[in-house]
């Protein structure tokens, strides 16, 4: 016998009620007297029903205090009848959500990763029937083959499914170097002025050597080779001529500056000012070099637009003061290097190596000039077409 129900019964003769319930087949786990007119009865569900029916029949006040065990669970589930439905709907939604692909990413790797076009790859995947919301049972091998065939030049395409995310990894093909056509006769010329550091001709005849000074457009490697003892034939020149080049920038500033100093002489002028006219009251003296301050003194208060404008002029004298040379050099040096770097960026080659950089200062008259030089080394051998294109 389990005490699943705890019932409080209040009546004058609870013993009679117990007798009635026992006659009906009820069993009680425990009966406690709580007061003169009340009993606390612990019993199982069937006995509780019998007891409550008896109480109802005889109009006795009875109240279920607590429920435990299976009947309590049944009541709990009955009160929350929508819980299983909600859980089922939630599980169905989870199954629907997790059973499909919702995110599609395209990533690129490899030496030519920057050449990858994610939009083109995703469009190719879309053309292959891959879009957000499709079931997860995608044939990844077929997708990889379809993308390899139709998405562009890729050396590898891989598709990986992680949860609801489809990740497409692709390695773009490295573009092939330009084909060297030995029969396309050409010379290589210098694209800038400089001093030759090293010269290497892989095809053609070298015209300069280390230490030579070359000018822009000067022939560096002639595109010909000895066919016979008497004859030469034109070929495409190929090689490298590393030259040193310099890019200079300048910045200058005056080594002195004028500092204003009040002489102590000052004058004051006053005028009566209205919105419509101005009436001078006193005239003040003006100076060639002066600093003026103007004050507006309201006369009529807030509602009468009347004021006195007072102008005070102070005479100034300028002294020429020398600047701190070291501080001036510290200010000029980065400006000169910035100018040189700008020239290098505007005129310099695509690939170069900075070999050295320095700055010189020269004073001429009242000005200090900083001259910054950036020395680079770069391959100066270009075709004439490339030279004219620049």
């Amino acid at each position: 016998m389990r005490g699943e129900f705890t019932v409080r019964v209040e009546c004058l003769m609870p013993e009679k009620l117990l007798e009635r319930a026992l006659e009906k087949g009820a069993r009680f786990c425990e009966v406690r007297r709580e007061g003169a007119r009340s009993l606390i009865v612990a019993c199982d569900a069937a006995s509780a029903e019998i007891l409550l029916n008896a109480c109802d029949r005889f109009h006795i006040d009875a109240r279920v205090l607590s429920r435990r065990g299976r009947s309590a669970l049944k009541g709990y589930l009955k009160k929350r009848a929508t819980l299983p439905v909600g859980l089922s709907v939630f599980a169905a939604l989870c199954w629907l959500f997790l059973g499909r692909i919702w995110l599609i990413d395209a990533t690129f790797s490899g030496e030519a990763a920057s050449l990858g076009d994610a939009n083109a790859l995703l469009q190719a995947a879309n053309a292959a029937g891959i879009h957000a919301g499709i079931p997860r049972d995608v044939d990844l091998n077929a997708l990889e083959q379809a993308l390899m065939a139709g998405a562009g030049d890729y050396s590898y395409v891989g598709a990986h499914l992680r949860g609801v995310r489809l990740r497409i990894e692709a390695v773009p093909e490295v573009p092939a170097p330009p084909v060297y056509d030995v029969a396309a006769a050409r010379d290589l010329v210098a694209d800038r002025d400089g001093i030759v550091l090293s010269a290497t001709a892989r095809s053609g005849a070298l015209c300069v050597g280390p230490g030579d000074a070359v000018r822009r457009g000067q022939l560096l490697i002639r595109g010909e080779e000895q066919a016979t003892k008497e004859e030469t034939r034109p070929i495409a020149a190929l090689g490298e001529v590393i030259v040193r080049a310099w890019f200079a920038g300048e910045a200058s500033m005056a080594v002195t500056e004028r500092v204003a100093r009040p002489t102590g002489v000052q004058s004051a002028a006053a005028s009566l000012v209205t919105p419509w006219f101005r009436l001078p009251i006193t005239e003040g003296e003006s100076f060639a070099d002066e600093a003026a301050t103007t004050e507006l003194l309201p006369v009529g208060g807030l509602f009468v637009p009347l004021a006195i404008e007072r102008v005070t002029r102070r005479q100034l004298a300028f002294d020429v003061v020398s600047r701190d040379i070291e501080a001036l050099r510290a200010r000029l040096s980065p400006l000169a290097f910035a100018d040189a770097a700008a020239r290098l960026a505007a005129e310099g080659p695509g690939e170069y190596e900075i070999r050295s950089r320095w700055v010189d200062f020269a004073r001429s008259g009242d000005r200090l000039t900083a001259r910054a030089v950036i020395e680079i080394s770069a391959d100066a051998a270009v075709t004439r077409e490339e030279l004219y294109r620049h």
Partner: protein
Amino acid sequence: MRNARSASAMAPARRPRRGHRSPPALEWVEDAAGRCARATVVGSRSLLVENHTGILEFSDERVRLDTARGPMRVTGNGLTLQDVRPGALIVRGSIARVELPCPGGDAPDEG
């Protein structure tokens, strides 16, 4: 300590009933037939009563049960009824006295 005894054994004499008097030798027949109330005391905390015919009164300090030979009374403190079923129950609590129906003496009636 287990102290068990039967009501029939404890009673000094049978309660006279109209038209019914069993000889002592046949008491076991009455007991086997279930007409005789049986009280089993276990220590001073538990009292098993079988073959009673009804609950006459129940409070924290007193329980009166009807039997075939008259009412029996249990007094004590904090008395509760457990495993209550038709004809049998257990009285738990601090049991001070068990008064059984006595045919020759005063019946343990109310008060």
